[in-house]
């Protein structure tokens, strides 16, 4: 009840000088408004910048097969084939930090023929439809091939912008046929322009087909990309230890009896892919995703403690670094701007409250004469400044939200409403009221009632 009456008394005091109260509040209104508008616009810009950088592949991970070694000589990354399409599906299924995965096979760069033209693209990739999601690569025309096309090794493909330019003179290639090593592929979609990557490689100079098509129709199933695992003795050519995965107690396929082997000596085909491309749920989750994938592949490939991994995981460290430094810088910039606005508003409040204390010296003396303790005076002035700040904060929130709404509507800048900014500015405006209102209030409470009453 006493609190209520102090509130009422403060309100009456503020109402006695509406203009001054309004002007004082204006400082905080503008301060808080600026903070909220800046935060929303800043957050929007930051999010859109981050999204742009992320689409460059900040959250992309690439898993390559490990290196083969023989007698101390390493043959470099990709010299063994240890990744299978099943690995890709297992990663997708079992790693929570992973958004999409796509198995990738590469074909050697051979000319793509269309009518009387031919062109050797930078990359010929065989993959799954999820590859486009992993790379965040939209289509400008047509539609992507689907899972059924992958299962059937359908003769379809997607082409990049550079191919469209070189082979079709910019005309729509949808429905046209191109030939790749004498395999006719129907173009079903055109990839959006992506430009060069960080190494200056033209990313649009690409042809993408289902990986089964590339592997079994174009490259030929029995050539380089297939590991031949003969269960007969001495099958160490491709897998030096006679096992596909080190430490495997059991082969991938059921062991056949000697009679079976004798009866049908056909080698068992182990289907492998060149690479698995994975996108983490966000750029921040890549570390988590790497840990999950490593664990899963250790289990699947029977790699024990202390044994050498038969795969490598790489992330886009350069892009990720750019992303995180951009985010940190944006956040700091916004924070500094917000702090400056609020301190300026707070100093304004302190000025006005000091003026108010001087002007109301007589009133303070009178209140003390009729029995107000120093504490009561302190509380009243503090309440007044906190009320001013909170009212200013409330109006500032409206002003800030309004500004960011107008900016989004009229200038089409990206804005992102930030509940954090609103809560923070309410808390900060209350603390500005307390901190900057304390000195004047303390000064008022220390007045000598006799002096104060005599003050003119």
């Amino acid at each position, binding site marked *: *009840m006493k609190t209520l009456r102090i509130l009422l*008394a403060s309100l*009456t005091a503020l109402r006695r000088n509406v203009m001054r109260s309004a002007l004082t509040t204006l400082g905080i209104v503008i301060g808080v408004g600026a903070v909220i508008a800046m935060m929303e616009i800043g957050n929007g810009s930051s999010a859109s910048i981050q999204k742009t950088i992320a689409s460059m592949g900040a959250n992309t991970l690439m898993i390559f097969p490990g290196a083969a070694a023989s007698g101390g000589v390493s043959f470099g990354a990709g010299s063994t084939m240890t990744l299978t399409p099943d690995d890709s599906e297992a990663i997708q299924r079992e790693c929570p930090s992973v958004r999409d995965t796509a198995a990738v096979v590469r074909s050697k760069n051979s000319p793509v023929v269309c009518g009387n033209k031919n062109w050797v693209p930078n990359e010929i990739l065989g993959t799954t439809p999820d590859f486009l999601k992993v790379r965040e690569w939209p289509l400008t025309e047509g539609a992507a091939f689907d899972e059924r096309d992958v299962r059937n090794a359908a003769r379809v493909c997607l082409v990049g912008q550079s191919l469209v330019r070189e082979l079709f003179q910019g005309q729509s290639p949808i429905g046209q046929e191109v030939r790749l090593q004498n395999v006719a592929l129907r173009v079903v979609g055109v990839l959006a322009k992506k430009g060069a990557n960080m190494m200056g490689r033209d990313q649009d100079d690409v042809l993408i087909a289902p990986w089964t098509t590339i592997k079994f129709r174009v490259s030929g199933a029995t050539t380089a990309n297939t590991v031949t695992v003969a269960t007969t003795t001495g099958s160490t050519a491709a897998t030096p230890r006679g096992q596909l995965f080190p430490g495997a107690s059991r082969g991938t396929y059921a062991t056949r009896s000697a009679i079976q082997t004798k009866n049908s000596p056909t080698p068992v085909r182990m289907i492998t892919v060149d690479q698995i491309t994975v996108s983490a749920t966000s750029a921040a989750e890549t570390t988590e995703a790497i840990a999950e994938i490593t664990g899963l592949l250790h289990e699947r490939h029977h790699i024990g403690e202390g044994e050498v991994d038969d795969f490598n995981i790489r992330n886009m460290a350069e892009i990720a670094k750019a992303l995180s430094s951009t985010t940190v810088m944006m956040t700091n910039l916004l924070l500094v701007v917000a702090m400056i606005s609020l301190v300026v508003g707070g100093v304004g409040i302190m000025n006005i409250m000091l003026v108010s204390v001087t002007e109301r010296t007589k009133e303070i003396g009178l209140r003390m004469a*009729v*029995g*107000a*303790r*120093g504490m009561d005076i302190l509380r009243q002035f503090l309440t007044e400044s906190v009320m001013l700040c909170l009212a200013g904060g409330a109006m500032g929130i409206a002003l800030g939200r309004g500004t960011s709404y107008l900016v989004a509507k009229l200038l089409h800048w990206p804005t992102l409403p930030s509940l954090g900014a609103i809560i923070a500015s309410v808390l900060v405006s209350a603390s500005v009221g307390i901190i900057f209102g304390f000195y004047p209030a303390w000064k008022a409470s220390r007045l000598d009632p006799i002096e104060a009453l005599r003050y003119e």
Partner: protein
Amino acid sequence: MNLIELRDIRKTFFLGEVVLPVLKGITLTIAKGEMVALTGASGSGKSTLMNTLGCLDRPTAGDYLLDCEEVSRLSNDARALLRNQKMGFVFQNFNLLPRTMAQAQVMMPLLYGGKHISQREARQRAAAMLERVGLADRMDHQPSQLSGGQQQRVALARALINQPPLLLADEPTGNLDSQTTREVLALFKQLNEQDGITILIVTHDPKVAASCKRVIRMADGLIEADETTVPRSP
């Protein structure tokens, strides 16, 4: 029964090197229900004595017993509560809050009483007190809308809202014309006689002094004369 008992009250101001004795040993008793005028030339120490009596200032030496209780050595907060409960102040220049309605002015001391009083009860008490001083129809007026006499009556209502036994008036008629002076003094007298409130008036005006039963004259920090006379109406 003595309301106020002063024993050898001394007050000395130290202004750097200069030692300035203002009260040089005042011994005084005022009984309950008295109406006393305190006069004297300026600089005689009557304002300082008034501040001491009003618990706004501490004496340098001596004892001050208010209602048989030693108060000169109480803490600041305890003296604030004492001012709130035991005495009312009326000033020469009224000291009303600017741009505040009469009712709110009168309610103000209730805020500091330390007791729980609802807003409703506070309003009612303020209204009753304004009615007592004859301003029932002026409750929502601001000081600028009131005459000098009316303003002083609002101040009086404010001083009396906590029903204090002692009323201290510092030149209460100094800013009023003779007609309003008579009205205000009549009101003082009525309060003194009907409600038994002890009243101490500091005044220069011999006519105001003459309306009191007892006149204390001060000179040079000491009581020069203490006379009880038959009061005349001014």
